[in-house]
């Protein structure tokens, strides 16, 4: 997993900061954004291997960001993990339709997030190999 690029999106600067430290300490390259609009631009430009985004953000929400990512030909296959502080923020069907790989509730454990990112990237690698 070393060298994989992760885009971390959250309007809470402390969250972005702690996640970035955790991922960098584990060999990931980290790019950050504070809202959905900024994140989509970075997604198109940086082509991260995975996007970790908060659900509720100003300007553009996490769901709106994922919808835009899926609609874009260049970014539609990038896996996404959603972070949310709201219970039942997203229904299973919507999660399936938007191909959201995992959904973690806040407060979350950085270790748990790291594990989730590693699992998603590993599965993606296996599928690509086959």
């Amino acid at each position, binding site marked *: 997993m070393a060298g994989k690029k992760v885009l971390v999106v959250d309007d*809470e600067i402390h969250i972005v900061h702690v996640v970035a430290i955790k991922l960098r300490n584990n060999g990931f390259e980290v790019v950050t954004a504070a809202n959905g609009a900024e994140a989509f631009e970075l997604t198109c430009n940086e082509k991260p291997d995975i996007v970790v985004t908060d659900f509720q953000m100003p300007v553009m929400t996490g769901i709106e960001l994922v919808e835009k990512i899926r609609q874009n030909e260049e970014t539609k296959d990038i896996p996404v993990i959603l972070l949310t*502080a709201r219970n039942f923020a997203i229904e299973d069907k919507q999660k399936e339709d938007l191909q959201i790989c995992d959904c973690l509730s806040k407060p979350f454990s950085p270790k748990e997030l790291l594990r989730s990112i590693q699992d998603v990237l590993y599965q993606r690698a296996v599928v690509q190999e086959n």
Partner: protein
Amino acid sequence: MKLGRNLYVIVTGLVAGILLLGGLAECIDSGIGVGSHFAGYAQKWVPVVLVCRVIGAVGVVWLGWYCLKLVGGITSVARLLKKELTAENTGSPEKRIKIENSVALVSSVVEKPAIINELSGAINDRLRRYADRNLALEKHLKDLQIQIQLSQRQKRNTEAIIYSIRDAVIVVDEFDRLLMANEAAAKLFNFDFRNSQHKPIGELIEAARSEFVDFLRQSRRGKVRHTRRELDFSRDGDSKTFDCIVSCVYDGSEQVCGVVAVLHDITREKGISQMKNDFVSHVSHELKTPLASITAYSEMLSDGEAEDEETRKEFYSVIQSQAQRLNRLIEDILNISRIESGLIKVDRKPVSLTILIEEQLQMIKGCAEEKDIRIVSQKPIVFDQVYADKDMLSQVIVNLLSNAVKYTPAGGTVRIETEVDETAGIARVSVTDTGVGIPEDEVKRVFDKFYRVGANKSCAKGTGLGLNLVKQIVEKVHSGRVFVTSKPGVGSTFGFELPLATAKTVEAV
């Protein structure tokens, strides 16, 4: 009667005898010619013949008259009987006497008067029974009329009760025809309830509300005693929700003979329930956010992910600040809740607004300088004291100032002014910024709990509780007034008014 009969027999015998004599005399007379056996006797029998014939004629006339009288008597009996049976005062004594007289006449010439007597007795008996039955029927009729009056009064009372009910009430029969409806139902479904009785309910209710008609029919067919459903109705863009309870009415043989529907407007309750749900959802989200930072940084520290002392200090600082943020949030929520429920402790004293403002300006100075925002405050005013809880008023001022700084772009200005209106006995504080402003349709909602202006969410973070707390403290606790004016792209003015701390105000409190 016997005399009449005997007389009839005697007269009949006489007439017959005379006619016989006359006949004989005739025969003798016809045989008086020469050579006849009875010749020589003829002339003396002619007067006899004449007399006999006269008597015979009179007898016949009399007999005829008597027969007519008899027939007339029988006929009059029959007529009287017919009249009696069809008349109103059946069995009256006068009529009975008339019949008896006619019957007596008939009896006097009829061979077996006993039968006539029996007939008379039977007829009288029957008439007497008719009279008794008539009386009983009249009594029964009167009872029925009284019952009808009572029923009609009960019906009027029931209708009055139903018409006075605030909820919409509709009653239909087993064929879905309207039996009764009150004014609330007529207003809800837009029909004239006084002129709609016995009309099919499907014709009275518009297609847009047909869900209600279907519900009535389903309940009736299902024969369910009580069914409940929430129905949403919209008119002119105004949507309302009703809790509809439909109950089947059963007759003596347990068959459904009608349906009663009661619709209770629960729009307000639903709105409150939704607000409560939204509030819980908001609170949960706002509490979890700082908690997420505290959890994450704590785990990083315990896992040794902070490699140097500086990083560790940074982590501790974040944990501390987020814990304080969490605490403030909880305090705000609790304060609002206490204020709303009237449980908050208020420590009122005369407080100088100018001094209080100066203190709070020092607190936000740092944030304003970071954004290069100029803070302007007026010169101190004398006699600007209000009778208030100092801590609460400080909270109000700092909330207004921090909002102004948050939503003003870099390089802008925030001005705070105090005015005293001695005539009205109030002090007024205004905070004016050159910030992003608020759209007109959202201005009236800015003081709502958790409400944040959509377009401004990107400019700054917030819980949506600050202005609500300001409103609660100023209006509910201190009997003041908050106000706001705003223009998008130009800026906003937020402020409050409080009664001046005069002797009268202090006494009143």
